């Protein structure tokens, strides 16, 4: 059944190879994405705990790499979030004619993304990781705007280089453990008695994942890629593709290299903290709305690294589990909220042909629905209670500070200032773009139904998580505890 969830979108994309399916491309896309979401929900409903819906087939037995997939509390929320976001992108794209190749590309990306979150084999993970880069390259280069060819090339080369470093790390893990299977490697961590080798492998894996996350200073591919990508592409890039890096840390780096993770926990914390503060401050200085949202992603992903780093500290396990739960919640929350923000930015571009906050203004007069959606998404993103971002960030702060180590308290207190800066920058955007006197570029008409129908569910889910998070946390918390105990091994 999990394989069906992974490959259903790809099968739907194959339908487009038939002649005369062009007119129905949008409908087929929405139907496939909706069916996949329904399957993902069914997957969630029938999830038994532990690693569920597992499939293990021989693939390349000479290097003990297999088609090993399965879900747990870490991957299931991300798979569900991925399916929701892709469905919303499909609905959003229904506002205009949809070309076959565009729909096929997104369906391909959906297969790749779900596959990555389900993969329990390093090589399989890597294949999906690389294919996501290829798919996104074509989305930006083919349907972007502005200097899209250059941005797409930069995105491709940068992240591809990152993935090569990641591959080196994976080969290192294979050398240490004689298998590519993640579950087997987690059982007996490689290089347990060779800290030097473990450090080198962690460096390679870490750099590879940090490029994708992105962590400061490996983030500069992100703003141009976002600025020039189409709205749905940006939403998927920020909402799903960035999670691949953060997910990789929790799935691969932490359980497989626990000793090195503990030893270099402070490095991870510092990188995360740098992302939090640097991302927020640079975002504050942006005039381009889409670049600004891109930099807030750097900030939000910084919180995740901060929390995951704190999980490696020598402290009681309860606060560390809280921090990891916060990090996973943040992955889901950021996908929903930033996805919504990028779709809002897409509407702005569609009507006004600009992202420049200096040329926009008073959008609320002509587009009250868009303004309401943007305000909700912005307040969610700045961590207002009642939306998912707060639940995530509160757990992260409480967990990091709750470890009780003096340096962690300082790190947490510094990290908290990030939410003040994001508050400042989102209020600035609301003021300059949506409120106040009208600007020179008008946004008219208001959101059409496909746009509303695409953005509103993302925010509704965020509110649901923000007010009643237990249904999500009940799934996440056991796996957070498991990760913390795995990373706590000597």
């Amino acid at each position, binding site marked *: 059944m999990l394989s069906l969830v992974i490959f259903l979108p790809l099968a739907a994309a194959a339908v487009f190879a038939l002649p005369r399916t062009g007119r129905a491309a949008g409908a087929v896309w929405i139907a496939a994405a909706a069916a996949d979401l329904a399957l993902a929900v069914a997957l969630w409903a029938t999830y038994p705990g532990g690693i569920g819906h597992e499939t293990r087939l021989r693939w390349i037995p000479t290097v003990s790499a297999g088609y090993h997939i399965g879900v747990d509390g870490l991957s299931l929320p991300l798979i569900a979030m991925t399916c929701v976001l892709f469905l919303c992108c499909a609905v959003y794209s229904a506002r205009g004619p949809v070309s076959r190749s565009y729909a096929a590309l997104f369906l391909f990306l959906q297969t790749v993304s779900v596959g990555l979150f389900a993969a329990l084999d390093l090589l399989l993970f890597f294949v999906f990781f690389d294919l996501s880069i290829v798919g996104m390259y074509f989305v930006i280069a083919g349907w972007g705007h502005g200097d899209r060819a250059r941005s797409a090339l*930069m995105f491709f*080369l*940068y992240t591809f280089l990152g993935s090569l470093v990641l591959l080196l790390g994976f080969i290192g893990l294979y050398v240490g453990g004689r298998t590519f299977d993640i579950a087997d490697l987690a059982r007996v961590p490689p290089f347990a008695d060779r800290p030097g080798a473990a450090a080198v492998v962690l460096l390679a894996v870490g750099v590879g994942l940090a490029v994708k996350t992105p962590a400061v200073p490996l*983030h*500069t*591919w992100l703003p141009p890629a976002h600025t020039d990508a189409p709205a749905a592409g940006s939403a998927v890039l920020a909402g799903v593709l960035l999670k691949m890096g953060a997910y990789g840390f929790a799935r691969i780096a932490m359980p497989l290299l626990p000793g090195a993770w503990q030893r270099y926990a402070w490095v991870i914390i510092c990188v995360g903290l740098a992302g939090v503060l*640097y991302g927020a*401050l*640079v975002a*504050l*200085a*942006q005039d381009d709305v889409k670049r600004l949202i891109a930099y807030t992603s750097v900030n939000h992903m910084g919180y995740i690294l901060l929390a995951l780093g704190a999980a490696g500290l020598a402290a009681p396990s*309860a*606060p560390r*589990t*809280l921090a990891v*739960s*916060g990090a996973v919640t943040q992955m889901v929350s950021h996908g929903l909220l930033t996805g919504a923000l990028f779709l809002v930015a897409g509407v702005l571009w569609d009507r006004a042909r600009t992202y420049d906050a200096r040329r926009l203004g*008073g959008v*609320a*007069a002509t587009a009250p629905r868009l303004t*309401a959606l943007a305000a909700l998404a912005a*307040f969610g993103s700045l*961590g*207002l*209670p*009642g939306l998912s971002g*707060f*639940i995530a960030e*509160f*757990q992260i*702060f*409480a*967990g*990091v*500070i*709750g*470890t*009780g180590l003096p340096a962690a*308290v300082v790190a*947490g*207190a510094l990290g*908290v*200032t990030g*939410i*003040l*800066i994001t*508050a*400042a920058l989102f*209020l*600035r955007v*609301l*003021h300059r773009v949506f*409120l*106040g*006197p009208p600007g020179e570029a008008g946004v008219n008409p208001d959101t059409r139904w496909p746009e509303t129908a695409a953005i509103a569910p993302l925010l509704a889910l965020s509110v649901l998580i923000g007010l009643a*998070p*237990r249904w999500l*946390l009940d799934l996440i*918390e056991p796996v957070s505890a498991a990760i913390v105990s795995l990373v706590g091994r000597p």
Partner: protein
Amino acid sequence: MNDLLWLLPGLPAAAGAALLPMRGRAVPALAVSVAAVTLLIAVYAAVARPATRPIPSVGGLRAGLAVDGLAAVMAVTTAAVALAVLVYAAGRIRASRGRFFGLMLVFTAAMLATVTAADLLVLLMAWEVMGACSYALIAFDWRDGGRVRAGGVAFLTTRAADLGLYVAAGCALAGTGSLAVAGLASAPRPWPDLVAGGIVLAALGKSAQLPFAFWLSRAMAGPTPVSALLHSATMVAAGAYLLLRVQPLLAATGWAALLVAWAGALTALLLGAVALAQTDLKQLLAASTSAQIGFAVLAAGLPALAGGAAHLVAHAAVKSLLFLCAGVWLAALGTQDLRELRGAGRLHRPVGVAFALGGAALGGLPPLSLWVTKDAVLAATGSPALFAVCLGAVLVAAGYAARVVLAVWLPPGHGGTVRAGALELLPLPPLTVVAVAFGLVGLWYGEWARFVGAGPGEPRPALPGLALTGVLAVAALARVLRHGPDAALALPGFAGWLGLERAAVAAAWRPMTALARALARFDDRVVGGAVRAVPRLGTALARWTRTRAEPALDGVIHALASTARRLGTLARRPQTGQVHTYLAQAAVCLIIIALLALVVWG
């Protein structure tokens, strides 16, 4: 039945959210009905004192609501003032009713949740939602950029202080393993200090105490009903309430109680002086809010729980009354300048009288409410220095109150006309009654202290103190009468709110934006530049290979080829096809071979 307590914040919150997108005349009616039901729930909660079963929140932590004496007092006050203000607003607000009444209900719900929260997570959630609602309400008229900015200043200032609450929550977790408010004081050191520090920071920010008071000046940009609610029973009251609530924690640290007491007393004095220096009605009232809440903050530090709670209740009634009256004049006369409002109180007697009574109470004139409640706080002041500052604050309070009342009542009469609808007038009598008569609490002070849950050691307001503050208030009133209400305090800085906002902008906002711009440039040029330099280096290398290395390599190959060709030409030359030359060549070769053989073997 205890879980019904969730309805207390839950009902107005849900109803408010549902009202947001609605339009039309039904909206105010619905909002007022919800507020009325909320008041009933609050009264029931105050009597029954329920506590919800704890529900799992995040991690293994629990969350819940509970009502104790302090919460009971504050919940009823909040619900009652909200009802009064919403009734008034029903007669006043015409545009975007859904947004206005929806936000007001959510605002009230957030305060009710803050009041009843039993753990720091629920408290923090409600606390922050309250801040966001204040932003949306201050910036209600969003077409005006100045109002939007004012909302932003209020939200950012209070959120900057709120960061303390985030840190406090983390430290509470580290120190006690839970987020329960009740157990904070018992944690091992240094956790109580850190938690207290964070909570004090957040509370001073929310209550517009020094040095955060300036946001309240900006908050005046909102519609008058918003000011009436924000200045009385929500937002500014929340900080003082939280400090009263965590008073055992403050006392456990020692320094925090002292700090809070001094912050409150100095705010009462200095912001009172700021109020004396204002020429704008709303600004005067705003500064007086900071100053009056200062007494409640002082109460948390002393401690004087019963006095502080009584002061919050009385002030809520007084200040909402004053703002609602002021709103009538502002709407009718279009100005809030005290000099242009001269005689406005005579235009509509009921409003004018209500305002005068509220003002007299604000000034602490005997026997009105704030005279008694203020003295209940002062009675617990042990340190002479603190007491002296407080007497100064009593003096300026009477001064600014006298100025604002006399300004609207002294002749000559105003030329304008003031009309007020029934809905606008309806809330004034009950508020006036509380503002005037709440001082009776002094007669049954022991019962009141027991109701609130104050410790047995707290002193009650006594006759000498009451006489002293009463005389001071009357003296200040007499002085204002002699000099006239237009004679604003002319000390430099006080008219501009002590330059607090300018200082905050210069010390925090400007450096932050400058750093942001510098980092953005750094990111673009250095980090991005380094990345862009890699492909540039690559293409430069490629170009060099094409223009230099390739031709050079080419040249070598060419040279090799031409040498080979030349050698070929040379080699062709002996091949003439004539037998005699071949014979001669063979002979020469033989001779050479013979010579070589001789050389080698010979």
